[in-house]
């Protein structure tokens, strides 16, 4: 298959960033009289999830400003650099990477071909700040921990003790998220058990379904389909058993088929929209990082779709505690996640 | 033999089963068939004779709808028919026993036999048919065995059965006897005779062997360069006549006549050859048959044993060939000659025993060792192990001695051509150019290419395996002269052949191989049909 199966949700966070520079003439950085935003996404930009939300965010904002957006999904990680160069040759004013797997495109920002462009990069720890890019960071563990916590609350209400986490490749970040999810649940139900299944492919719906099925047959009552294209199929399966389900990144409380109980919103589209707003005002500075704090910023956030006032309150407190660093996420994950 | 059956055929009274009118077929520049007329009557065996590349097979392929004709008319029982596919041919009752590619190894006999007809499969019936036909024509074969487990002879039977089962009105056989023993051939002809006499069929028999044509056919048509040059009742013509028509010139039917099966054995076999020898061995200084000699045999096979897939094909075979003599290795097909040929090609390594050249054993595990040691070979199947069809004449001539045609590190096209030119002239190889792929040469010329290459390394030993198989008279004549000359020049020649007359005519000593052993060696003069027959039968003399 030509597209890269390792494409996955990979949010990010924390650290770094010094006073940077504002490219002259924002938003029309290259001064060709029109504003063009180029978006590269490593994943399926119609996955009704993480990747799509990024592109949608960009388009919504751009159209309101009468800008053009060039979006390109399924960019193979190995192809990132060339894809970015190609964008620059297309005279875009901003290159935006849809997720941090494409970090290998960043060197292009230093190249002459991309001299007249602004760069927006969603980040994870492994990307170091360079003068030519603006990093947008968040800490996935914050959101996932809170998501787990919310799940815990619902399970508690239903008297369940067994949850599941279904994701694709057995990669580092997916393991980390699994741990955070577990920790979150255990903050509510100290002796809850959480089952992790790695299907090996974020887009293989059939396998995702079977994984959920298997977990259900083992008495799992809440499942987090932390997937790409296979999310809906897996969730639909979970719905048949009336399990508690969560969204990987976007707000889908409105959705009826499949139905979600908790929206975990670390919506890159929202971050991006905010950045674009700055860009439009000519205030987007390169060489610095914008951090998105759970409980501080509007996003990321967790939403229990129809939670009781009490549940919502508890969740809100946790989030603000995380925001105010009262709860040390890393420590909690270490303590409860393993 | 079929002499008894060669009774009078009032062929004139028969109505034509098949008429070909002005058939033409050109392969690019090559005109394979040019305005060919041919009439075949039911109840007769019609011989089709011609040199290699005369167009026989092409004509038949046209008849079978395997090759589209450029022009011409085919009348079946007087009705013009457009035979566009093998199916149509089959429907018209035209059946052919092909030489090549017509049985499928992994399938069973019965599956092969019913291949090509239509309707649902009935295994039981198919098997029954195979058996009944087998009985009727004396072609026994087990319908349920896989074809790739059968011997050449048996396969031929299956081919015949397959044809006959369709109850063809015209049955075509393309060189059917090339792999059959004389006995088997005789049987085959008996069957054919019965077919035409009792069953109102017509048979077209393609062959190079004048003897077969003269004994087995009622009518004969000779093709030359794609044209019909001669057509007659077999009884009203003579082998000499046919040979002349075929080649287009007088041919001395001495030794080569023998190869064509004319030497009427056993009466004047030895004398005939005796007469032949001085004519073909021009240099009396080198006696063609050194009676006693002290120096070691140029080629010596010692207790050579070869097993292929468990079966012992060569069984402690011992044989000596001395410089300047031609030893004929005579035997019925399938007694190990082919394997012996492969052995001397360096294609198989013996399980036991040694091959010695000039007294020194050769390490057969090392490729090309035999060649380096001075052994040249004209293999039985040139297409398989003699030439590379898709490489040029020059390349084929050079392939065994690349050292001679290359500079310090790169091959030299110039040298290669020079060598090729020389050899082509010396062995009069007829080819448009030295860069022509060998594939597009006629059989005879392909054979000359092989011989030229092997002789050019001036070997001490020359092995010629079935050297005249599939060759026409002219080519045979040439081949014999060269073999004799080689011997005269002091080369030890081993002639592996299934043609008794050929061996009788050329060899000074005849070794008989049977079931992979040498059952006896005797001077040609002492070789009588009886003694050879016993040896061939495995009765050690």
């Amino acid at each position: 298959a030509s597209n890269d199966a390792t494409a996955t949700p990979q949010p990010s966070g924390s650290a770094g960033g010094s006073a940077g520079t504002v490219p002259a003439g924002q938003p029309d950085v290259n001064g060709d009289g029109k504003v063009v935003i180029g978006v590269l996404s490593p994943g399926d930009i119609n996955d009704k999830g993480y990747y799509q939300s990024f592109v949608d965010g960009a388009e919504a904002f751009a159209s309101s400003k009468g800008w053009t957006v060039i979006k390109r999904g399924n960019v193979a990680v190995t192809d990132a650099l060339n894809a970015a160069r190609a964008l620059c040759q297309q005279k875009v004013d901003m290159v935006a990477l849809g997720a941090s797997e494409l970090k290998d495109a960043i060197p292009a920002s230093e190249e002459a071909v991309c001299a007249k462009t602004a760069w927006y990069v969603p980040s994870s720890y492994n990307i170091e700040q360079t003068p030519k890019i603006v990093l947008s960071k968040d800490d996935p563990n914050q959101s996932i921990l809170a998501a787990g916590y919310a799940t815990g609350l619902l399970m508690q209400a239903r008297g369940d003790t067994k949850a599941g986490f279904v994701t694709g490749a057995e990669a580092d970040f997916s393991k980390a998220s699994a741990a955070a999810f577990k920790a979150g649940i255990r903050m509510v139900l100290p002796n809850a058990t959480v089952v992790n299944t790695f299907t090996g492919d974020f887009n293989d719906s059939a396998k995702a379904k079977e994984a959920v099925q298997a977990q259900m047959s083992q008495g799992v009552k809440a499942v987090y389909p932390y997937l790409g294209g296979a999310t809906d199929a897996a969730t639909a399966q979970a719905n048949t058993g009336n399990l508690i389900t969560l969204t990987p990144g976007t707000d889908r409380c409105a959705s009826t088929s499949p139905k979600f109980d908790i929206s975990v919103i670390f919506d890159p589209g929202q971050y991006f929209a905010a950045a674009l707003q700055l860009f439009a005002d000519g205030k987007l500075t390169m060489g610095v990082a914008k951090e998105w704090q759970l409980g501080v910023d509007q996003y990321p956030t967790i939403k229990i779709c129809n939670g009781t006032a009490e549940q919502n309150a508890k969740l809100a407190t946790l989030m603000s505690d995380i925001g105010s660093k009262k709860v040390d996420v890393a420590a909690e994950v270490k303590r409860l996640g393993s | 033999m079929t002499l008894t059956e060669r009774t009078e055929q009032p062929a004139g009274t028969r109505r034509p089963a098949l008429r070909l009118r002005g058939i033409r077929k050109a392969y690019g520049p090559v005109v394979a068939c040019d305005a060919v007329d041919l009439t075949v009557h039911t109840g007769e065996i019609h011989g089709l004779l011609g040199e290699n590349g005369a167009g026989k097979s092409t004509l038949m392929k046209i008849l079978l709808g395997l090759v589209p004709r450029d022009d011409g008319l085919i009348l079946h029982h007087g009705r013009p028919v457009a035979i566009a596919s093998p199916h149509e041919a089959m429907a018209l009752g035209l059946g052919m026993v092909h030489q090549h590619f017509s049985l499928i190894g992994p399938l069973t006999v019965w599956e092969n036999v019913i291949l090509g007809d239509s309707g649902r499969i009935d295994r039981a019936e198919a098997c029954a048919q195979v058996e009944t036909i087998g009985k009727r024509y004396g072609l026994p074969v087990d319908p349920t065995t896989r074809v790739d487990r059968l011997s050449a002879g048996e396969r031929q039977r299956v081919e015949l059965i397959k044809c006959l089962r369709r109850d063809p009105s015209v049955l075509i056989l393309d060189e059917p006897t090339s792999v059959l023993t004389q006995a088997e051939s005789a049987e085959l002809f008996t069957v054919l005779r019965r077919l035409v006499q009792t069953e109102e069929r017509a048979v077209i028999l393609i062959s190079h062997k004048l003897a077969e044509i003269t004994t087995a056919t009622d009518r004969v048509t000779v093709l030359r360069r794609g044209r019909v040059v001669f057509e007659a009742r077999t009884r009203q013509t003579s082998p000499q006549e046919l040979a002349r028509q075929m080649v287009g010139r007088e041919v001395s039917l001495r030794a080569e006549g023998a190869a064509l099966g004319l030497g009427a054995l056993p009466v004047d076999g030895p004398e005939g050859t005796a007469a032949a020898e001085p004519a073909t061995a021009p240099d009396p200084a080198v006696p063609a048959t050194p009676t006693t000699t002290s120096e070691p045999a140029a080629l010596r096979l010692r207790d050579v044993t070869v097993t292929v897939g468990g079966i012992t094909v060569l069984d402690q075979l011992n044989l000596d060939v001395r410089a300047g003599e031609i030893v004929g290795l005579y035997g019925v097909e399938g007694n190990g000659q082919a394997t012996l040929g492969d052995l001397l090609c360096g294609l198989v390594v013996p399980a036991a025993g040694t091959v010695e050249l000039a007294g020194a054993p050769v390490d057969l595990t090392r490729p090309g060792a035999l060649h380096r040691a001075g052994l040249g070979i004209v293999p039985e199947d040139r297409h398989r192990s003699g030439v590379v069809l898709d490489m040029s004449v020059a390349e084929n001539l050079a392939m065994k001695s690349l050292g001679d045609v290359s500079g310090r590190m790169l091959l030299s096209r110039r040298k290669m051509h020079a060598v090729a030119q020389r050899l082509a002239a010396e062995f009069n190889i007829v080819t448009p150019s030295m860069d022509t792929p060998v594939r597009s040469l006629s059989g005879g010329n392909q054979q000359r290419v092989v011989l030229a290459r092997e002789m050019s390394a001036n070997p001490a030993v020359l092995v010629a395996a079935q050297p005249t198989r599939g060759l026409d008279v002219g080519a045979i004549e040439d081949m014999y002269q060269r073999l004799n000359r080689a011997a005269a020049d002091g080369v030890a020649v081993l002639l592996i052949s299934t043609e008794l007359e050929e061996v009788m005519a050329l060899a000074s000593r005849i070794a008989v191989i049977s079931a992979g052993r040498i059952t006896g060696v005797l001077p040609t003069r002492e070789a009588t049909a009886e003694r050879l027959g016993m040896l061939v039968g495995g009765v050690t003399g």
Partner: protein
Amino acid sequence: MSMSDNISTILASGIRLSLPLAFAACGEYLAERAGTLNISIEGMMLGAAFASIATASMTGSASVGLLAGAVVGLLIGVVHGNLSHRIEINTFVVGLVINALVLGLTSYLITISEFDTHQVAQVGIPVLRDIPIVGEALFVGRWPAFLILAIVPLTWWLVERSRWGLELRAVGENAQAADVTGIKVNKRRRQALMWCGVLAGLGGAYLAVGEVGSFNQNMTAGRGYLVIAAVIFGAWRLKRTLVGCALFGLADAMRLALPALGVTLNSQLLIVAPYLLALLTMLLFAAQHREPRSLGQPFERGTA
């Protein structure tokens, strides 16, 4: 949860995962017996999966979708057949190109269209389904699953007993000879590819409207190649090929279910397992393991 229940769930899941393979494998088996190593089967399955969902949400009937899948498979078979067995373009090139085309087109089409989920009805065979352990696994399923019960014997009969099949085998074993005996070699191969297309189509469609109920980009995720591995593993015999499919399906089911049972194992190894197995069987049982002699060889009248 009792052991037997676990076994029965794994079994059931294994069968669900095997079925798409099994359908396609019958097709690939037949195509390869006729001498085509058909790598466009991946494209056939993917294209059919898409078509089935698209049609289903257009007509509102999953069953019609299934049909559409088969049809699209057939079409791809026709295209491949004509390109490689009429125009005589190297069959591997054709396969690669078709796979690229289908992946590209389907991926694109879902970006511009909105499909709702559709799934064919679940049926169970009354008494049998109550058999302990295997009952649930074998006798309950989406109705097309039971088509396999007809398709396998049919395929076997076609290949081993029908005249058509006899000719297919002849073509696959020795195209030249088959031609001389009056069999239309390339025509047979084209027909074989069509049948392969229909079955691969069914497989892909079953995956979409049978198991998943929706389509997502590249959802077959290499199942086509898995099928090829199964045929090789099966030594070009139908029975063993199906055993291969079942094995591969079960292996996946295990991989997905075991974590839930508290067992974890190396996923990479389990993902390569099929190909490794195929290779090993070819190595170990080389003797019985003969591919059709003219597998992958183009036929051209006259070539010796």
